[in-house]
């Protein structure tokens, strides 16, 4: 049984939602004003809040943002329940910081099931178990590293239904958010300007995609390699790791603390390359450079991602050149350019093409490994 606050200016709907939740075994407080609702949430710290969007003086989105910006209650699970039923309304609700969205009219079963799901998600996210860090890197551009990072993070989110955070540590501009058609208003640059920060503050610098995937964007403008110190990167990843089940880190293509620190912390590092001579040579030299910097990786895999119709070199020749096995082979996917234009990662679609099939398999392997570790 949870303490749930329902905030809606429509008295009739308020009573109806209240009855549904009481029948679901919860203790419900009904509030008909968003301003009063915020004050009561601050004072009583309930287990979950259900908010309407269309309310006078303050919309449900504004109230959600205000709650997320208030340290004491920033982790409150929020469900948006609104008559605005379009896809854009759902994504606006999630982008504002809500954990769930339902459109009216809603059945009692739907509402109670969604609430139970949010409450369960919260209790599992409070688990002391640290999240798994997966770092993707390549010293050569155009190998599809960000595409894979975004798709892998989205697939992990879809399969696990747990908190998954994609950290875009790119130093050459915000790219991961482009793949998800998110418009960042802030980035890790603003976050790391703070003297110290916790999960609540970090969440305010992230955006949540409609799939539930959380993204910490890179700054829009390219940055110098020394903008991130090893200490800052460690703090950042520690905070994310303590609160997310999976942390997918898209690494920059230059030797810097933004690259070497996450590689040292990662549970799994994925070196991405394309089947062409320059990419393989770059990958070989990258490994030498990382060895020179004494970067040790707990578990390293190689991903061969074919981004063009024809491959220059066979996987066998690449394995021989690198003296390593290629763990994941991803063939050319003609759907990817369109997915990029539409801002929808293929892993979130029902496409049966090469890239989502391979990425979903990667996520499945990682997810099984984690499940085995937990059991």
């Amino acid at each position, binding site marked *: 049984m949870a303490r749930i606050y329902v905030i809606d200016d429509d008295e009739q709907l308020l009573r109806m939602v209240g009855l549904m939740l009481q029948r679901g075994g919860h203790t419900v407080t009904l509030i008909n004003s968003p301003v009063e609702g915020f004050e009561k949430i601050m004072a009583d710290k309930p287990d979950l809040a259900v908010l309407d*969007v*269309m*309310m*006078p003086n303050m*919309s449900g*989105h504004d109230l959600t943002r205000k709650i997320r910006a208030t340290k004491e209650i920033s982790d409150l699970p929020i469900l948006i329940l609104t*008559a*605005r*039923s*379009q*896809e*854009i*309304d759902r*994504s*606006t*609700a999630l*982008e504002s910081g809500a954990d769930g969205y339902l459109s009216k009219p809603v059945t009692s079963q739907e509402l109670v099931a969604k609430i139970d799901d949010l409450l369960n998600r919260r209790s599992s996210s409070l688990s002391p178990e640290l999240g798994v860090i997966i770092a993707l890197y390549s010293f050569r551009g155009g190998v599809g590293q960000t595409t894979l990072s975004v798709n892998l993070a989205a697939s992990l989110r879809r399969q696990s239904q747990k908190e998954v955070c994609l950290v875009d540590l790119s130093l050459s501009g915000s790219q991961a958010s482009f793949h998800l*058609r998110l418009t960042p208003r802030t980035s890790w640059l603003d976050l790391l300007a703070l003297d110290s920060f916790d999960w609540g503050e970090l969440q305010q610098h992230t955006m949540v995609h409609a799939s539930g995937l959380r993204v910490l964007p890179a700054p829009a403008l390219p940055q110098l390699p020394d903008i991130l110190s090893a200490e800052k990167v460690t703090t950042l990843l520690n905070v994310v790791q303590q609160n997310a089940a999976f942390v997918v880190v898209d690494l920059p293509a230059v030797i810097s603390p933004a690259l070497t620190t996450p590689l040292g912390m990662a549970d799994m590092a994925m070196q991405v390359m394309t089947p062409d001579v320059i990419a393989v040579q770059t990958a070989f030299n990258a490994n030498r450079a990382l060895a020179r910097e004494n970067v040790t990786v707990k578990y390293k895999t190689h991903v061969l991602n074919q981004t063009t119709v024809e491959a220059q070199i066979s996987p066998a020749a690449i394995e021989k050149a690198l003296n390593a096995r290629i763990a994941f082979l991803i063939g050319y996917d003609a759907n990817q350019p369109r997915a990029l234009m*539409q*801002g929808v990662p293929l892993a979130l679609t029902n496409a049966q093409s090469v890239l989502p099939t391979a990425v979903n398999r990667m996520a499945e392997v990682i997810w099984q490994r984690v499940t085995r570790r937990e059991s």
Partner: protein
Amino acid sequence: MTAKRYGHVVNLDLFTDSYRVTGRAMVGAGGIHATLADPNSDFLEMEDAYISRIVKPGEIVASYDIVAFRKDNINFIVLQDRRDGIPVGTQHGRSVFVRGRTYPTFLTVPSFEIKGEIHHDGQLSPRAVLVSSMGRFQPIFVATASASLYPDISYSGDLILVHKERIGIFCLQESRTK
């Protein structure tokens, strides 16, 4: 003292050239289509209206208890249930709005393009469809309206009522939908 009103309340998403307005309207047995066709009033009234800009349709910029729209300036209205828009008839007979065959359609109004289906009885031509259908608004069923300049912004509904005089391009597909 407020006058007693008859009818039922429907939720609707209404679009003008630059704004999306979500709210409730009181309609009679003929649905919102009949209210829009009422020659005694040039205005449509909405209650508890929440206004967003078309370019940022999720964000609410203003809200008012009562809003009136000049019917001529409404481009289209999105409804989640066709029964809120038109009378669909009973199990003994379909209403005039849903009689005939179903054809895919594509049309444009300022700032938006709309895809969906029309019901039409008789010879198919854009003119016949627009002239023979009743009222100022054309019903488009199972429809999606996408913003012309922002194709990722779209609105779907079981019924979209489109102001006939605001239509720029009107396309029909002769092959019926299954």
